[in-house]
């Protein structure tokens, strides 16, 4: 029972980490705390739902489809984010927070207007399947999500460390002015990073809508979880997000089983708040890196 709970927690934690990686990247590189992260997850869920409904697409089609579609959408939104971030107005960080807060509100309102309050779920052939291993049960969808989260993290790290573009992104993360002086097109990098973020987040939204379900109201919950993980992981640490996700997943699963599900949120907020007070820089922060 205990082992099964921990295993479930680890799988859920992987999924939590998955949609926070891009968020972390945007936080680290653009200094933008994106309030709309849950909104992108939610829209991704609807993307998966409609592509399954209208095109009859299975997951291996709809996942890349949403990755590309939401990537392009985010890339096109990039200039707006860049404009807010580089505004001459005082406190651009807070204005960016306010702007993405507006975007999140817009997404929620738009989804409510278009699709109402109904709960929808992505239908997939993998839905009921599960894998038995060492006497524990692993639902296949969650395994896929966990694997995808791992692969995405590794691919992102390889991209950041191994390519020239990744070098440009890391330089931008350290100092926009210096990067610009050295010939990095900061605006293009910003658009690119925002596009990568929305693509990854939207793709994970498809999986979350297949595992759970999607309504226009789920966004807030995912925003909260992403905040939690980024705070726990510390600014800019992409690998820290994985660890924080696993920690959160296991913690939530254990509390839900042994104390009561109504307390799991309370615990999440409590831990989040205390972490911020004790270690505002995060638990897994390594100094000076993207």
């Amino acid at each position, binding site marked *: 029972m205990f082992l099964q709970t921990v295993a479930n927690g680890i799988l859920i934690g992987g999924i939590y980490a998955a949609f926070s990686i891009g968020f972390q990247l945007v936080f680290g590189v653009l200094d933008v*705390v994106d309030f709309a992260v849950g909104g992108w997850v939610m829209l991704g869920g609807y993307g998966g739902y409609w592509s399954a409904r209208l095109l009859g697409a299975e997951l291996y089609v709809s996942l890349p489809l949403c990755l590309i579609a939401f990537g392009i959408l985010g890339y096109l939104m990039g200039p*707006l984010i860049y*404009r*807010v971030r580089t*505004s001459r*107005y*005082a*406190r651009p*960080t*807070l*204005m960016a*927070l*306010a*702007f993405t*807060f*507006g*975007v*999140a*509100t*817009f*997404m*929620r*309102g*738009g989804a*409510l*207007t278009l699709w109402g309050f109904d709960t929808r779920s992505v239908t997939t052939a993998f839905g009921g399947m599960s894998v038995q291993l060492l006497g524990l049960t692993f639902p296949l969808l969650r395994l896929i999500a966990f694997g995808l989260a791992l692969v995405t993290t590794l691919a992102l790290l390889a991209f950041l460390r191994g390519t020239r573009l990744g070098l440009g992104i890391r330089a931008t993360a350290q100092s926009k002015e210096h990067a610009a002086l050295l010939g990095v097109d900061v605006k293009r990098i910003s658009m690119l990073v925002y596009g990568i973020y929305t693509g990854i987040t939207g793709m994970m939204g498809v999986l979350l809508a297949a595992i759970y379900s999607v309504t226009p109201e789920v966004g*807030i919950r995912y925003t*909260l979880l992403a*905040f939690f993980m980024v*705070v726990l992981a510390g600014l800019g640490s992409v690998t820290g997000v994985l660890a924080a996700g696993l920690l959160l997943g296991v913690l939530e699963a254990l509390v839900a089983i042994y104390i009561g599900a*109504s*307390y799991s*949120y*309370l615990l999440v*907020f*409590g831990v*989040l*708040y205390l972490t*911020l*007070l004790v270690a*505002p820089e995060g638990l897994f922060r390594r100094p000076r890196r993207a």
Partner: protein
Amino acid sequence: MRWVLAVALGLAALAIAVSLPFWAGGYWTRIATGIFMWAGLACSWNIVGGYAGYINFGQVAFFGVGAYATGILMNDPYDWTFPATVPAGLTASAILAGAVGWPTLRLRGAYFAIATWAFAEALFQISTVLDITGGPAGLSLPPIVDERLFYYLMAAAAAGTYGIAYLLLERSRFGYRLTALRDNETAAETLGINTASVKVSAFVLSAILSALFGSIFAYWVTFINPRSVLGGDITDQMVIMVLVGGLGSLWGPALGAAILYLVNRLLWSYWGDTVIYIVILGVAIAAVVLFLPDGLISLWPRHRRRNLLGAALGRLGRWKRDA
């Protein structure tokens, strides 16, 4: 001559405001009551958000504490009268704000926003599991005979809020200290400002004012539950009203509150649906941040920003002549 006109206009506005419940009818009186409440709440948020530059996403916590203090104390084992519950609510929220504000205000920027949000959500979760708050089912309060009372209560509370904000933020050292630490906290410290104490004072002040409206609101609607007085969308409303009206200006929040609340109510009465209102809110914030960072109030003729704009245009004109 000018000030005679101003005084006459002010007296006329006062006469209209005082007599409004007697000729406007129940519907418009309720709307006016709501506008006063939201204008006051937006102003209380603006003290920390606009003047001190700390975006507080958990302001609803103090509104909820005020509401629940009134709700709990007016109910069974206590049976206090309404006027007695208000000071209790204000004291509770002041203590809570001091205890929470002291550590939280050490955080900056987005971290502060996240921490206050987490705090408010934790309070929301607590209120759903406690017995004393009635859990998710909520609390009922003794109903009131004449609704016009709340119009005057809200109007007086709003007037008091704006009066306090005017005196403390626009006409005193306290206000200068706040704006100094907003613009550059380190520089403010080197000038000898005790930033920690100034920030916490502002935080407590804003919490007390929010709790005041929470108390009146609970008595007004006579039924409260966690979602209606501790829900995150109440904070969202305050933030949006301030942003749209004008962050860090005295009258901006009142303007934003009046416009947005009217839009909300009109949509509600003509379509019976406020979903589209959420879309409008989103577009409004995004547009304001992108194109009018000082809010709608900066379109007012004698506002500072407009003057800056005028100066810039004048310079542009000169430059064109020179060229």
